[in-house]
């Protein structure tokens, strides 16, 4: 089977010959083709080719995506910092648009045709369409995006002191994401869509499951349901970081038919499998090991992931636990592919 056939088969709940290798790489892809990290965030064409070529080199699933980096920040007027340092990886928040309670009440859903990186995201999606690839756009995480609008610390304080402010933020983000989805579906039709919900701020390293339940769950569920109402069939959700306590809550959010749910190395794949029996699961080789571990360590982690993930009834992709760091030795990434050759075939 080709990589494209494997992806199509899993999305149609059909059997595949072996586990496929799913890409999560932005600035690593830049390094593979000799682009700067800033290039793959600020230039959609370079972002597209960097990712597609890297995916080709490593025999990965044919899916490229462009999340814009710190999505939500520029769209709502926050200031960002480009990844120009040797040690930076992605765009980061410099100054939040919301600095006070009054700022929250003044927030409006921006124009999805012109705000922030959305025009670049649309150019990227046009390339996806031109090359017959799944089309992506951002569908969350609600709190991650809210954090880029108001600053994570401020938002955390308000969760306890002024929950109505956080609810307002989440409402605005929800309406914003739905507006994006409507624009994308209107432009391309829903058939080839795989939007992405990327949720690092939702991790239990920051918020409690109770806070997830109050501030993320209802809104993220609403976004996903509305996307399905528009005809989108599959959502890629990245459950980033330590989220074991959130899993019963994530499980209440519909992911697709099937969805693709990816996990950080903190969540055991067998646990993930129990919570998402009807979705494809993905993961979850630790990025720090990919970056600084030996190939033997990467191979062994990949083997363990494959051993656990292959048992999942709705299908499994091998992938990193999060974005592959740009200084990862390429051989370590290739070692994951090698592990698939050795352990990833379905008999």
């Amino acid at each position, binding site marked *: 089977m080709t990589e494209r056939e494997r992806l199509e088969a899993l999305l149609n709940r059909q059997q595949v010959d072996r586990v496929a290798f799913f890409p999560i790489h932005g600035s690593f892809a830049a390094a593979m083709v000799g682009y700067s990290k800033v290039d793959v965030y600020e230039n959609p064409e370079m972002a597209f080719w960097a990712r597609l070529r890297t995916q080709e080199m490593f025999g990965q699933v044919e899916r490229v995506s462009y999340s814009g980096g710190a999505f939500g920040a520029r769209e709502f007027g926050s200031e960002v910092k480009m990844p120009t340092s040797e*040690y*930076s990886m992605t765009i980061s928040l410099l100054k939040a648009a919301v600095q006070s309670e009054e700022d929250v009440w003044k927030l409006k859903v921006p124009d999805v045709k012109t705000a922030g990186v959305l025009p670049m995201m649309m150019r990227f999606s046009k390339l996806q369409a031109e090359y017959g690839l799944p089309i992506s756009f951002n569908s969350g995480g609600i709190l991650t995006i809210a954090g880029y609008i108001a600053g994570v610390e401020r938002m*955390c304080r308000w969760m*306890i002191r002024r929950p109505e402010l956080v609810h307002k933020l989440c409402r605005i983000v929800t309406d914003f994401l739905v507006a994006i989805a409507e624009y994308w579906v209107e432009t391309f039709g829903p058939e080839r869509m795989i939007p992405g919900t990327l949720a690092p701020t939702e991790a239990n390293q920051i918020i409690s499951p109770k806070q997830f339940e109050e501030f993320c769950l209802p809104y993220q569920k609403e976004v996903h349901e509305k996307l399905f109402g528009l005809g989108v069939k599959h959502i890629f959700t990245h459950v980033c970081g330590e989220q074991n306590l959130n899993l019963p809550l994530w499980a209440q959010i519909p992911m697709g038919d099937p969805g693709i749910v990816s996990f950080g190395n903190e969540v055991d794949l067998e646990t993930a499998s129990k919570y998402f029996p009807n979705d494809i699961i993905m993961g979850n080789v630790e990025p*720090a090991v990919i970056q600084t571990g030996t190939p033997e360590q990467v191979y062994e982690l990949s083997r363990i992931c494959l051993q656990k993930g292959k048992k999942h009834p709705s299908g499994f992709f091998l992938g990193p636990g999060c974005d592959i760091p740009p200084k990862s030795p390429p051989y370590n990434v290739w070692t994951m592919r090698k592990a698939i050759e050795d352990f990833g075939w379905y008999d």
Partner: protein
Amino acid sequence: MLALPEPERIFINRIERGRILMASEERTQELIKGLYDAVVAMDEEQAAELSQVALREGVDAYYAVMNGLAAGMDKVGQLYAEQEYFVPELLLCSDALYAGLGILKPHIKAEEAHIKGQIVIGVAEGDVHDIGKNMVKIMFEAAGWTVHDLGKDVKLERFAEEQQRTKADVVAISALMTSSMLAIPQAIKMIRERDPKVAILAGGAPLTRDIATSYGADGYARNAGDVVQEAVKVLSRLKGN
């Protein structure tokens, strides 16, 4: 939990001040517990009010800080490590701590204040995620350390420069991003070139104790709740050597 001084010492302190103090031993402990509870309950107003009351009623300011506020923050660290409290709670507890500290600190006599140590802290170059570092800063300040906070996205050479300037006992470097963790061994090398003896802690989500050790760090803590203890352990080990 910090050790309480002997009741006699409190009594002697009161006499030494040469004025008749109002708070009895029982009342003092009530106020101290109130401060402790205010921090744990994220009650800024209560922490501020009780700090004022404590002063009015002659409770030793340093005693109130260490056994009330700081002890409360110690408990908060424990609750965070146990995943009972999360970042929102930690932030609000620290607000309560600082509300009380702001009132009590000016009344701490210099000879009383026992500075536990000095620490330079910052987030490695290329990384702007500072929640973890801020949590650690709070824990050290609560425990009576002087903290020199370099902030986030700190150029590597700044850690060595600041340590030299302040003669800090400990330097703590954090990284949340896997890419910026690579800056840590470079920063440690620069620090060691100028002072081979200073204690260095490294931490952050992508690190483990093994990685921190391989980078040349003397210590590592998985979360803010454990870090002060780790610093004390490292210093004591290094002094013993």
